[in-house]
């Protein structure tokens, strides 16, 4: 049996590899293979998989990529992820990518879709719009037609065929992947000292660059390994971290939160891997099933409209309750419209429930962890004092 360290070491290598060697090798292994990049927050990877393509998650350049050209495209008041993504593009690191999907998350990523069309005219670039209306015959029909258009676009551009049969198979494979992701999250919430947040992050993140089958196997191996390993339990408090759904925090930030005395028991990192809650039905119209799952069984996040005022922020309260968290940390990328505009409303909901929280901002290339360590540490201390009082 593999040990968890070997698995996480492999994930770390994948994480640090800004040339996406694993995806390149996958593509080179068989002629005609296609790779489709996608940005946060969610795309139906089943569709890409059903066409025999590799979905490749592009979540910026992290803190190790030196941005030379990307900054030339953005003013100082715009977040980091589009700059480093452009840097990846102009530096040739994405030259093997046949298409790019830009999901509806904010105006910056939305506009990046058009920039990609101008800068890389040979690449299939699509703004992936999703409904903000959740009625089946309104938003649902619109979304189904959008999915169909996406399938046709990919078929045209990549010379693939996306059949219903293949879609059903892919849905089943992704159902399995999502089950394992949930299992990883639940395991961490139960025994967080055995599953450091940075390990869990790297493990899930590997799923953005590996074929899904390989990633599922990896998670299985990891779960099997960590259940048998023992690590010292620390007197940490339990927190939910939110706001990290697009630009990624540096790994050091995740580590710093835990080192300061906070076990992360839930987060909104890499939401694409668990956007759809529960299994998507395999029988029937696969695009219809994906649409239904999106409309009625998907994550809540700032980029999505919440039609019901009473429901606003309740996903966070539920997460706190479900995982027995004692507080919430709002970690938002600087200049992130969705996270920062949503934050006051979420904070009001938490305040109403007497759930303590703190907030700070980061950038994917933040170098200073001291202020974050101090804030998270003080938060952990105050929670402990509060619970003892």
């Amino acid at each position, binding site marked *: 049996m593999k040990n968890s360290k070997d698995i996480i070491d492999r994930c770390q290598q994948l994480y640090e590899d800004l040339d996406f060697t694993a995806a390149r090798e996958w593509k080179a292994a068989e002629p005609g293979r296609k790779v489709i990049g996608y940005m946060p927050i969610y795309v139906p990877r089943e569709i890409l998989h059903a066409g025999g393509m590799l979905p490749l998650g592009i979540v910026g350049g992290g*803190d*190790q990529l*030196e*941005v*030379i*050209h*990307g*900054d*030339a495209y953005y*003013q*100082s*008041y715009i977040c980091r992820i589009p700059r480093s993504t452009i840097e990846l593009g102009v530096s040739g690191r994405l030259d093997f990518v046949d298409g790019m999907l830009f999901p509806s998350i904010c105006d910056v990523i939305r506009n990046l879709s058009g920039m990609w069309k101008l800068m890389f005219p040979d690449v299939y670039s699509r703004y992936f719009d999703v409904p903000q209306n959740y009625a089946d015959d309104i938003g649902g029909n619109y979304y189904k037609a959008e999915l169909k258009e996406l399938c046709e676009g990919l078929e045209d551009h990549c010379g693939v065929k996306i059949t219903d049969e293949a879609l059903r198979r892919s849905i089943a494979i992704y159902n399995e992947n999502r089950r394992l992701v949930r299992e990883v999250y639940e395991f961490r919430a139960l025994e967080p000292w055995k599953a450091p947040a940075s390990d869990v992050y790297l493990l899930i993140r590997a799923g953005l660059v590996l074929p899904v089958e390989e990633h599922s196997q990896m998670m299985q191996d990891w779960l099997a390994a960590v259940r048998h390993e023992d690590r010292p339990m620390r007197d940490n408090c339990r927190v939910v971290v939110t706001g990290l759904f697009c630009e990624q925090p540096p790994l050091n930030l995740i580590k710093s939160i835990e080192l300061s005395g906070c076990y992360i028991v839930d987060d909104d990192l890499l939401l694409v891997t668990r956007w759809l809650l529960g299994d998507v039905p395999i029988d029937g119209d696969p695009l219809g099933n994906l649409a239904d799952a999106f409309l009625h069984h998907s994550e809540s996040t700032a980029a999505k409209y919440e039609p019901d005022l009473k429901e606003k922020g309740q996903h966070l309260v539920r997460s706190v309750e479900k995982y027995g968290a004692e507080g919430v940390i709002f970690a938002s990328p600087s200049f992130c419209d969705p996270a920062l505009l949503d934050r006051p409303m979420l904070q009001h909901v938490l305040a109403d429930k007497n759930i303590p929280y703190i907030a700070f901002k980061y*950038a994917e*290339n*933040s*170098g*200073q*962890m*001291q*202020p974050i360590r101090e804030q998270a540490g003080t938060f952990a201390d105050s929670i402990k004092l509060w619970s003892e009082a």
Partner: protein
Amino acid sequence: MKTFIGIDLGSTTTKAVLLDDNADVIGRGITNSRSNYDTATRVAKLEAIIDARLTLCRRALKDDVPELAGRLDDFLTRLELGFRREQFLEQLRDLEQTCIDHIDGDRFAGQESAVTDVLEAVFSKLRDEAAEIYGPNAERRSDFFRDIAGSRYLAVAEDLAKQAGLSYDLLLNVYDKSIIEVENRPPSEDMSGKFLRSLEELVNEAPEFGVDAATVERAVKSALGVDLEEAYLVGTGYGRVTLPFSKEHIRSEILCHGLGAHMMYPDTRTVLDIGGQDTKGIQVDPEGIVENFQMNDRCAAGCGRYLGYIADEMKMGLHELGPMAMKSTRSVRINSTCTVFAGAELRDRLALGEKREDILAGLHRAIILRAMSIISRSGGISDQFTFTGGVAKNEAAVRELRKLVVENYGDVTININPESIYTGALGAATFARRAVN
């Protein structure tokens, strides 16, 4: 002779360049900008004229006193030093009188004459030091009166005040009130007198030159006698909003910079200027005409001022940063060029045990990365590339720039002129010349 003057009013220094009718630079002058652009302009211009007189002296001496061949530079340096000393003494007298005039008010009550006595003693000592300050081998950290007189005044005054049992604050008070006044008072126009006094002393006290006093004096007098007619003046600079010139005498600093770089290196196509307040990427055509320019956006991260903060934070001189960074063997990656966060980031890195030189190397790279993005915004680099501004004097910054330019744009010629601080003023002077011709 006709001269054309360009003035570049910067946020910290004001520069002037004098061109003759052949577009040759005959004089350059620089002074600190103070809070008064009018005075700064006058002083910079005067400095350029002094420099021009020296150029004319050089031309005259070269022709008329051939026996100075090989020692002309030395001779002129000594001549200028003597001139500077005379100028310094003149300003010192002004400062002394101004200080004495400022002994006024309640705080001085009953101590007026004691303060006057100390002041006279202080200035007497400073006058005595002048010969040494302007000695042939003396090292001065600055050429600005405020810097030279100020540091010595404060040191001597503290000493003498203590001896006299006076509060040092009183001497500080009169100094603070007076220095600004003196600084904003242009030196007297009697330039020839100062040159001639310097010359006389040089001839008398430096027989090693072995020149005939009368011949030299004739040559220098002829140089001093040339009429320098100001045919046209053009001003530019960051403070252009309040430039003390009328509109037709003002050109944008970007245009001046582009043209100045073109005058220095006619094959320049791209200019990068990293100044205290901003960073500019400029593209020029074969005639020096600006085709495109980009500046740092509203956020001034990564400009020269950033290095100033770093120097303060590290308690180092600005000019010491580059040499220390050059010692680095392993550059630390610094991601933020945010001036506001510079201090915190630095302390964080030091706390992590990183070496100062490695952090500094990383900081220099970070600044140059910002500059690279501005170059990229303005259209990249296609042919000769000229780097100007205060940061161009910093060897560590230049090293990073060379690396990145080659990596991103291939093997292009990179020009860095030791007089690059005058680029804007040279462009302005060229505009002045073109305005007439």
